[in-house]
């Protein structure tokens, strides 16, 4: 779960990481009021869960209002800008980036620092059973050529950032940029915090910070009890029980012919009971041209799956052509029963046949 910058900064503050005294605004008028209190020049940061940092500098109240008006109507990476974080402008003598993240290629937690204006950087691997050592934080300071009079401050900041990383169950925390101001203070200008979804059960306060609207733009999200929708660019919906099976179904669609391409790939993690299949079907996009169901009877036999499918089709008949691929116990009999009942929606036993049948159906209609 990605948090917004203003949320990340409020958490940083709890861990004594120096952030600016900013205000949140969701209208141009509110932005102007914030700028009045903070006194221009101010920095207006778009609060959006994109990778890039979007901000403008306003030298006057009028400018603050106009910039805010402009930003609040934009989208960045598909995410709508609904909030702005207004902060006092500080002059930075130097800017750095500081990251603590789970590095999957090394299967380790890595802290890294870099100087924004040049190639200087240093990384340190953190033992999760011991935590970050003070000498490692000093090593980062030295690696970015931070003047030694600022090392004590930097070390404290890094240690606090690690505490934040651990205690929020983060997968990644970024301070970018970390400014060294003309008064010799290290201050966070930009920040990101990604929280491990698996840990949300024990981070209830953070779970409540979820931006539900932004979530709807996510390319992969859970929409119902153990039903996940993954968005690929095409228009053939693939519904399968099992993540691997879902991927393999999408792969089979993609490799068939260029005009046949997977769109919504919907995984049912667990039994394909009626409720989950109904949810899956509901989340097939309205612009989908066809649907492939690829269902393996493991805990439920294929006969039960077909039974659930029949009930599903009687409640919510799909509006586009479908094919059903069934595998597992009693699959052949289940296919025959299905095909007799729904002759227009072929029930087949191989994925290749399912893809071919749907493609053929769409080509001739």
């Amino acid at each position, binding site marked *: 779960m990605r948090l917004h910058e203003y949320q990340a900064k409020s958490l940083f503050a709890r861990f004594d990481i120096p952030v600016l005294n900013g205000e949140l605004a969701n209208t141009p008028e509110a932005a102007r009021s914030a700028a009045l209190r903070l006194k221009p020049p101010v920095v207006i940061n778009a609060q959006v869960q994109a990778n890039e940092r979007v901000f403008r500098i306003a030298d006057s109240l009028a400018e603050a209002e106009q910039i805010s008006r402009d930003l609040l109507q934009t989208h960045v990476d598909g995410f709508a800008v609904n909030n702005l974080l207004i902060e006092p402008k500080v002059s930075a003598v130097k800017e750095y980036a500081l990251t603590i993240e*789970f590095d*999957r*290629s090394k*299967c*380790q*937690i890595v802290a890294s620092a870099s100087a924004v204006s040049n190639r200087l950087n240093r990384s340190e691997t953190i*033992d*999760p*059973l011991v935590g970050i050592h003070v000498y490692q934080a000093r090593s980062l300071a030295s690696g970015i050529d931070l003047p030694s009079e600022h090392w004590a401050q930097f070390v404290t900041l890094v240690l606090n950032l690690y505490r934040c990383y*651990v205690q929020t*169950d983060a*997968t990644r925390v970024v301070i970018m940029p970390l400014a060294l101001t003309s008064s010799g203070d290290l201050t966070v200008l930009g920040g990101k915090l990604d929280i*491990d*979804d*698996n*840990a949300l*059960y*024990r981070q209830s306060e953070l779970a409540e910070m979820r931006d539900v609207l932004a979530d709807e733009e996510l*390319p*992969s999200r859970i929409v119902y009890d153990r039903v*996940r929708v*993954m*968005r*690929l*660019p095409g228009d053939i919906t693939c519904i*399968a*029980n*099992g*993540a*691997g*099976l*879902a*991927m*393999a179904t*999408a*792969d*089979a*669609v*993609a*490799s068939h012919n260029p005009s046949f*391409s*997977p769109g919504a*790939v919907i*995984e049912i*993690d667990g039994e394909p009971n009626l409720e989950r299949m109904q949810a899956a079907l509901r989340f097939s996009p309205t612009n989908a041209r066809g649907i492939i169901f690829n269902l*393996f009877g*493991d*805990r439920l036999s294929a006969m039960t799956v077909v039974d659930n499918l029949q009930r599903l089709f009687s409640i919510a008949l799909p509006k586009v052509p479908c094919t059903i691929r069934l*595998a*597992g*116990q009693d699959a052949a009999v289940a296919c025959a029963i299905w095909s007799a009942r729904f002759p227009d929606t072929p029930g087949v036993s*191989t*994925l*290749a046949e399912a893809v071919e049948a749907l493609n053929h159906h769409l080509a001739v209609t």
Partner: protein
Amino acid sequence: MSILIQPNTAFLVQGMTGREGSYYTAKMLAYGTNIVGGVSPEKGGEWLHGKPIFDNIRTATEATGANASIVFVNAASAVDAIFEAVDAELELIVCVTDGIPIQDTLRLRAYLDRHLGTRLIGPSSPGIVIPRIANVGIVPTHLGVPGRIGIVSRSASLAYEVMTAMVDYELGVSTFVGIGGDPVVGTSFAEILMLFEEDLETSAVVLIGEIGGSSEIEVASYIGSKVTKQVVAYVAGQSAAPYVRMGHAGAVFTTPDTSAAAKIEALQSAGARVARSIEEVVPLLAAR
């Protein structure tokens, strides 16, 4: 007896009295798996499915001689259960539990690196099957006939597909190992391939990988240099886009080198035969 499970391997089920633990214990016992007891704190002294329940692993091992465990404990408590199993010096731990926070798994991995006598399979693993001998986990009990093909997979559902298809080609399984779909797992593809390479009961291996991480690249290097047995592979997610998590916590790639294409290339270069679709795996295996 193929890999990981030996005649003297005796399992405790951690979380046996929970809903999932109880359901699957009954199935595993009916299959013939050597389960000697269960561990459920505060339920010590009870019996379930004809097996004794203990409060902790130490008393369980003292009473039963157990040397392995299967973890069905919920995600909030699973890591504690596994630490307990490691400290009790169990040799094999199979963790079925899904949804364990990644920092917990990282701590566990760091701990296991210092306790080399314990092997962890999983988390998020469907388990291990040695047909007619042991079914450890949640793999449907009708799957897997005895044979000489080793199967190792990140995906449970695709392994089930392969095991089902193998029947029509009269091919059987020596051992199936589900290493799990998480980004951090206790045992990698390379480690399982090493075991299969040395296993007299395995002639060839099916490897089912997917996008995300570099476990397939690591095993490709091992296949190219040390493995003499034929490997047939499939890598799921060729149609996936970067940054889109395809179900499993570990099934997401952000750089080209962790995409399906990169893994397929590496495996092919190493001499593995890579199927273009999941349905091509068994025909390729049969054709070798």
